[in-house]
Each structure stands twice: as C-alpha cells, then as structure tokens.
C-alpha cells in the first residue's frame, strides 16, 4: 500500500518547500509539492525533483569509513562503534592534554537547515567550551544592516509582494533561486504592476522584468542614496517621518552635503536623469516594494548598501505599507527551543576566515575539526590556509551524504541521512511556514541522523569518562523535533500542543506586512536612519556610501560567482557535470584578449589560477566576468582557490560575524597557447 509522508526541503533556499513523498513497501517512489501550502502550491523546483536519485544514488556513502592518509583515497570501512570510539578517545585525550576542550572545533552551516541539525552544536556544547565557526558565509552584512534600521531582521510575507504596484528586484534572481516567487511577480505584472530589476548583468529575472537597470558592482548603496536625495529634492518624503524615525535631519544633511547626483551617476553607471526618474516613480507609487538579494551585501560595503536601500524605502514611506517595504529575509520563525544546554564560552572564529583564524589559535591549537553541512574546500576563501590547517589537525571528522572535496581531507567519514530518513523541524528565512519533516524510509545503509550521531558520541564520551558530555545519550528523534516548538514557537504558530504540527505545516501568525504600525524594535523604537548601535559597532551612525574595492591594474576584472539554477552552493542537482568552468565575459573583452568563444583561457590572481572555457554574455560590463557556481571541484580545480577572505562591513551584531565580500574577487585573464591548455 502506498504511504504518504510530509517533508520540508531543508536546502539553503528561499522557498523551503513543503514536500509529500510516497513510499511503497518501504521504498521511496515519488515526491511532489504539497498543494496545501500557499507558497509551494504543489510545485517543487528541479533541484528537489532529483531527490530520489540522490537518496538512492549508488555513490551515496553507506558506511562509516576511515581514510588512512588524508587525500590518499585509501579508505577502509569501520563500524559505528569503532568510529565513535576513535573520535571519543581523541576528544578525551585532547581534553586531558590541554586541560580544556577548546582544541575541539565545529564548523557547521547550511548543508541541511533542519532544526535537529543543530544536534552537532548541542553535542559540542555538551562537551564544554569549544571552538566554533560563527557568522554566515551569506547574509551577515544585510542581517546587521536591517537590525540597525528596524531593530531586528524581519520582512513581510512574500506573497504580499503581489500587491505592489511598483516592484524593484534589486540584485536578486528569483527565476533561478526562488522559483515560487516568480508566479507572484508574474501575477502582479498581469494586474498592471511594474517590475524593474537592478543588477550587474541581465539575469533571467531581469530579462522577464519591464525594465533593467544595470548598476556597477558595489555601487548600489550610492544609487539608493542618490535616489534618497531626489526624494528630498522633489519633496516626495513621507510627511509623517518625524513621528516614527530617528536621525532624519542628520540623514538629510548627509544627503545634501555628501551626495551628488552627477557623481553618483558616474560611479553607479546609471544616468542622473534615470536616477531622478526612478526615484520620482518610487516616491509617487504606492505600494512600492523592494526585494534586495543576498549578492548585494557580499561587498566590503555590503551592509551600507542595505542600510541605504532601507533608508530609501523609509524616506518614501514604503516601510510598513501593505505590498511595500524592503524584503530581505527573516529569522523570526527560527526560535527553536534547542537542547537546554548551558551557553558556553566558546572560542569563536569567523566562518569566513576560519582556517586563517584557526591557524592563529595556540592556547590550545586546534586538534579536532568536525565539518557538518559544510564543504569549505569547495566554498571557502583562503584555501592555502585551509590546507595548512589540515596538516596541523590531528583528527578531521565529516558527516555527509557524498564524498565532497572537503571529505577527501577527512580521517573519518560518517554517513548522514537525508530528509527522507529522519525527523526534523524546518522553518524558512523567507515565508512564514514551519513544518515537521517525517522519515519516509529507513536510513539507507548504515547512515545516521546528526541527532543520533550526537547521542551516540555523547554516550561513548560518558562511557570513557563519566560526565564528559552533558548532551543526552539517547532519546526519541520525533520527540526532540516536537520539543523544538517551545512556548514562543507554539504561540507564534497558534498551536496548543507541538503534536498539532504533525498534521500539516503551519504558518506563523504574523501580520503579513512587516512594521505595519511603524512599531520598530530599535533602541529608540523608531526607524533609525541614525543608529547608535551602528556607531557603537564602530560604523557610521548613518547609512553612507563607502566605495567597494576596485579592480587593480594587475587584476582588472571583477569575478562574480552567482548561484547556478541547478546548484545550491556546492550541492549539485545537474545530471551531467562539466569538467571545466565556463567564464562569461563581455564580447569586447573577447576581442581585447584575442580570444574565441569556447576557447580555453586562464584567469588568475595572487592566490591561484584557473583554466576556463570562454563564453560571451553581451550584458556584462567590460570589467566584470562571471563563473556560475558549479559542483565540479572534484573534476577541476575549485574556483574558490581564487578567493581571499575580504570581509563585509557588518555582521558582528546580529549575524555572529562579518560576511564574506566574495564579490570583491579580482582576476586577470590570459589567452593560452595550445600546449598550455588542459582541455
């Protein structure tokens, strides 16, 4: 008899879709979107459509394995007992040697965003103060920026965007990365809304918009400030601003004295008259909504860019307006109860500079590194530091589904379950739904969930040394998932008991429009153009323009690496992988470098060089090149070898650490002789 099960797509993706799977005789046979979910609406993207292929892939790792020498590929199977013995022994030995647990490091992020994947964090907290990767490789600057402006990181329910008469998609490409938002945008267009896309290049979303505004990379904040100035000049500011904002006068002063439209036009690449026209239209249209993408804040001035765009929304009176506002993301529905363990005085290393900072740790040095939901060797900057760190470490453990680039460095590989094999609870950072994830099938092979691994290791640790880990040693996965719905979450979801979520996903009972009564949660309880918290963090109190890094003579091209439509970071959902990266360049560059389409060329900078196949994108500026993220680091040199860990300007206050200014990677391009080409 076919059986149905609820799941939530746990990928680091806006949509966090509700999934229904069907099993027959314990075998997963199909998955589909949940039609009862008002965002997913019964549809899934192609990334999830190959989930069965992923679950039952013969390349999926089914047993715990041990590598005799890192990167050797010489692996032996081991039992869970042996693997956990080895890890527990190393932990106990390190603790004895150092007199503390700081040499144990966890580097975890978004491979699976389910609440029970925090089990690894709970396990480490149970051991004592340890070393942790903190912050986010993604959205830190923007999260902090919105925290300064609004008091917390929150945005309207995404379907509200459909009410906008004017919709600005700023540095976001939902046609590729948030496919369920596209029907909402198209519906709005059908009803007469105008959609303008701001981006560096003509993305698939820009191509579907009414108008495309091409902005030079890293200058979007200035563009927003220039438009703010126009709003002031044209008297298009909300006339109630004095009632609910702080620092308006100072901000207007700044705009008056420091922002010049002609100069802004020069820097941003958007003509002054277009800046004026756009600002006037934005100021005069209600409701008008801006959706800011994550790429915009991956610059050294990324936080300021977000603050400037928020300020534009505020100045025009669009914050708190139904169908208006500035959408970026939220984590209001992520208030999981956790494991009730005491907060530890962890040694915190910025996730984006993890290897660099880890190498500098000496009291004690890092001995054990556990990678969970992460693939730093394919994603992170400072690859040379990573390789030095790997040499220094005494034990590297990774739990994952497949042998990633990073897993090749591991001593022990622990096979993980997919979201079809374990209980979990998932929230979205975009819509307001929260859903339970049920197991549909038994774990494949000997795979275990993160929670089970954490329990089992805690049991081992306590067997070796009583009291060495305060995390529980056993339990029920289902109960632990339900327990994540503490009183706050239950209230938020309008539930009496956690069990009610077993019936269906539930949407949080938030008003659909963020900040609708202008009740902000900043220290002043107002929208803060002028933020004392920003000042206290060593930043300008006002949103200001600070130029992003510019290309140099040696490396004159800015390398952007946006998401591919079939990839989420290093997780690939492509059927056939290429053996090389395609580099998209402006046709003029092709000419300047004497290259032909499809020819192999080299890009390089002080960190690495990479051979690529050249392709043309007519919409790209001449000083910008693009490589879409692709999981081909097992076949080709990983493109992140070119990255340096420049950090964004914000992220320490609410996001745990500054973000990675990944869009400030610069390279040079070179034609290769036939004998130099690898392909």
């Amino acid at each position, binding site marked *: 008899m076919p059986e149905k099960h609820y799941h939530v797509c746990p990928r680091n993706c806006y949509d966090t879709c509700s999934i229904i799977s069907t099993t*027959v005789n*314990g075998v997963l046979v199909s998955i589909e979107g949940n039609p009862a979910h008002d965002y997913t609406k019964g549809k899934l993207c192609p990334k999830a459509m190959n989930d069965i292929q992923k679950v*039952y892939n*013969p390349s999926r790792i089914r047993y715990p*394995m041990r590598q005799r020498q890192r990167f050797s590929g010489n692996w032996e199977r081991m039992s869970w007992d042996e693997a956990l013995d080895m890890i527990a022994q190393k932990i106990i030995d390190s603790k004895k040697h150092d007199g503390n647990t700081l040499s144990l490091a966890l580097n975890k992020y978004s491979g699976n965003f389910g609440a029970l994947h925090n089990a690894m964090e709970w396990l480490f907290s149970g051991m004592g103060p340890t070393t942790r990767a903190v912050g986010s490789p993604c959205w830190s600057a923007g999260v902090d920026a919105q925290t300064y402006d609004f008091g917390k990181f929150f945005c309207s329910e995404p379907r509200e965007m459909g009410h906008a008469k004017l919709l600005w998609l700023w540095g976001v490409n939902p046609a590729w990365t948030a496919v369920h938002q596209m029907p909402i945008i198209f519906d709005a267009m059908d009803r007469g809304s105008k959609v303008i896309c701001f981006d560096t290049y003509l993305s698939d979303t820009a191509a579907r918009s009414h108008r495309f505004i091409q902005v030079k990379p890293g200058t979007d904040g200035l563009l927003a400030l220039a438009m703010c100035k126009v709003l002031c000049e044209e008297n298009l500011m909300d006339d109630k601003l004095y009632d609910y904002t702080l620092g308006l006068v100072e901000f207007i002063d700044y705009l008056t004295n420091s922002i010049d439209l002609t100069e802004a036009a020069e820097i941003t690449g958007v003509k002054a008259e277009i800046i004026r026209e756009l600002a006037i239209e934005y100021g005069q249209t209600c409701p008008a909504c801006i959706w800011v993408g994550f790429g915009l804040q991956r610059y050294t001035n990324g936080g300021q860019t977000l603050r400037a765009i928020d300020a534009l929304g505020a100045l025009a009176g669009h914050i708190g307006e139904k169908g208006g506002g500035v959408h970026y993301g939220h984590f209001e529905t992520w208030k999981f109860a956790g494991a009730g363990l005491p907060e530890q005085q962890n040694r915190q290393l910025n996730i984006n500079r993890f290897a660099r900072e880890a190498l500098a740790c000496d009291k004690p040095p890092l001995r054990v590194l556990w990678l969970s939901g992460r693939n730093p060797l394919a994603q992170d900057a400072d690859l040379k530091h990573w390789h030095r760190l790997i040499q220094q470490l005494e034990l590297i453990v990774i739990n994952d589904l497949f042998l990633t680039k990073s897993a090749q460095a591991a001593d022990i590989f622990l096979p993980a379950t997919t979201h079809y094999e374990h209980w979990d609870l998932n929230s979205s950072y975009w819509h307001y739904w929260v859903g339970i994830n049920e197991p549909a*099938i038994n774990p494949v092979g000997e795979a275990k969930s993160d929670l089970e691994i954490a329990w089992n290791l805690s049991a081992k640790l306590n067997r070796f040394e009583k009291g060495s880990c305060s995390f529980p040693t056993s339990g029920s996965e289902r109960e632990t998932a339900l327990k994540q719905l503490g009183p706050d979450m239950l209230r938020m979801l309008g539930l009496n008991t956690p069990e009610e979520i077993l019936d269906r996903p539930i949407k949080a009972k938030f008003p659909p429009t963020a900040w609708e009564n202008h009740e902000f949660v900043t220290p002043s309880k107002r929208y803060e153009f002028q933020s004392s918290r920003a000042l206290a963090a060593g930043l300008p109190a006002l949103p200001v323009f600070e130029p992003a890094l510019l290309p140099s003579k040696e490396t004159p091209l800015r390398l952007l690496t946006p998401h591919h439509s079939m990839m989420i970071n290093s997780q690939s959902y492509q059927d056939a992988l290429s053996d090389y990266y395609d580099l998209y360049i402006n046709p003029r560059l092709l000419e300047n470098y004497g290259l032909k389409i499809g020819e192999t060329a080299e890009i390089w900078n002080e960190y690495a060089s990479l051979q690529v196949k050249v392709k043309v994108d007519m919409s790209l500026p001449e000083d910008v090149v693009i490589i879409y993220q692709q999981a081909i680091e097992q076949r080709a040199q990983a493109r992140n070898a070119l990255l340096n860990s420049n950090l964004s300007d914000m992220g320490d206050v609410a996001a745990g650490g500054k973000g990675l200014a990944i869009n400030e990677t610069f390279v040079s391009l070179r034609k290769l002789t036939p004998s130099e080409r690898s392909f």
Partner: protein
Amino acid sequence: MTEVLRIDLPNESVAHFKEIASVLLALSRVFSHGGESLDKTLPMMVKTCHQLGEYYPELLSMSAELENHSLLNEIEQQQLCFEFNRLFIGPTPPIAPPYESVYLSQDQLVMQEQTVKVRSLYQDENLMVISQGKNPDDFMATELEFAAYLLRNADKEAMQNKGLNRLKYYELYTEFSQEHLRKWLPKFVERVHQKANHPVFPMLMDVLLCTIELPLQQRRNV
C-alpha cells in the same frame, strides 16, 4: 518452465550443487564482509573453489591463481582492502556498485524495481534480508546467498531422491539466475575487468561468472 520440467536432471553426483553453493556462499561472504575481511574470506573462496575444481578443472586453475593472491602480508592486504572499497564501496563513487538495480534500472539507482522483485522471490521462500529497507535486497552478497540457498535445497532434494520435487529448487535457481544474476553480473564484471588495479578482483569475477553458469551448463549437457 514446462520444458524444464520435462527434462531429467543429472544425478546429484554429477550436479555438485552443494559444492557450487559453497563457492557462491564464499563469494557472498567476500562481498558481505567487505574489503577489511579479505584475509579471511579469500582463503575460504580458494578452498571452496578447490573443492569444486575437482569436478570442474577450469576452476582449479582459477583457484590456484587466487591462492597466490590470497597469501598477503599486512600491507598488501591493506592495499587490497583499499582497492575493494574503491571498486565496490566508496566513499569515492564506486566503480562497480554491487547492486542489481544499478545495472538494470532506468536511472541506475539502488532500491528500484529489481530490488523489490528479488525481495518477493525471497519472501516466496519465507526469507527476509535482516537489514531490509536499509540494505537493498539485490545486494550482490544477498543474491549470491540466495542462489546458494536454492542450490543447497536442490541438493537436499536430490539426496532425498524426490524426483520431480527435486526440480523445484533447480528450476528456481535457473529462473533466478536467468532473471537476475545473468542479467546484471556480466555488466558488473565488465566494469571490474576494465577498472581494477589489482588482479585478484578480475579473477574473482571470472570465478563468479563461471560458477553461476555451472548449474545451467548441466542442463545444457543434458
């Protein structure tokens, strides 16, 4: 099937089902116990091959060669284990995953139609894979164990001189082998032949292909 029933089989002294079953079981152990236990499973393989070789000389030369490679020092054993894992286990995508459906299903995955089909064959015999649902029922070790089970039963029936009854398990073996083993094992073996870096594995493959054919050969002889 009706045609088979009309054929009289060679008597048990010629069939050697028991010996063939022992080789299949030893092969099954090689795969179920994995690369880390080759020091134990390979000698067992050699021994059973040797016994069967008494009746089938082609196996004698194979088992002699296997024997040369099963007396290894610790380092060689470890290399053999790494190679076994590279070929059949992972964590790098294995060259020849030992599951039937990977070779016969449309998407080349585990746990597909073929898996469910062999499961129902096992169920018909009141058998069940201990780790059902976790490990695919069409795992090579399980299929070989099932083949050995069928032949052992065929042998028992032969010993009891049950006449037609005896044909039941032989028939089941024939059917299982034709519907499953013979359909995917040649593809599996080919991959090993193409990509193995250690001679022991192609040899094992030769033994495997040869052995599963022996009971069928007997029918052809008849």
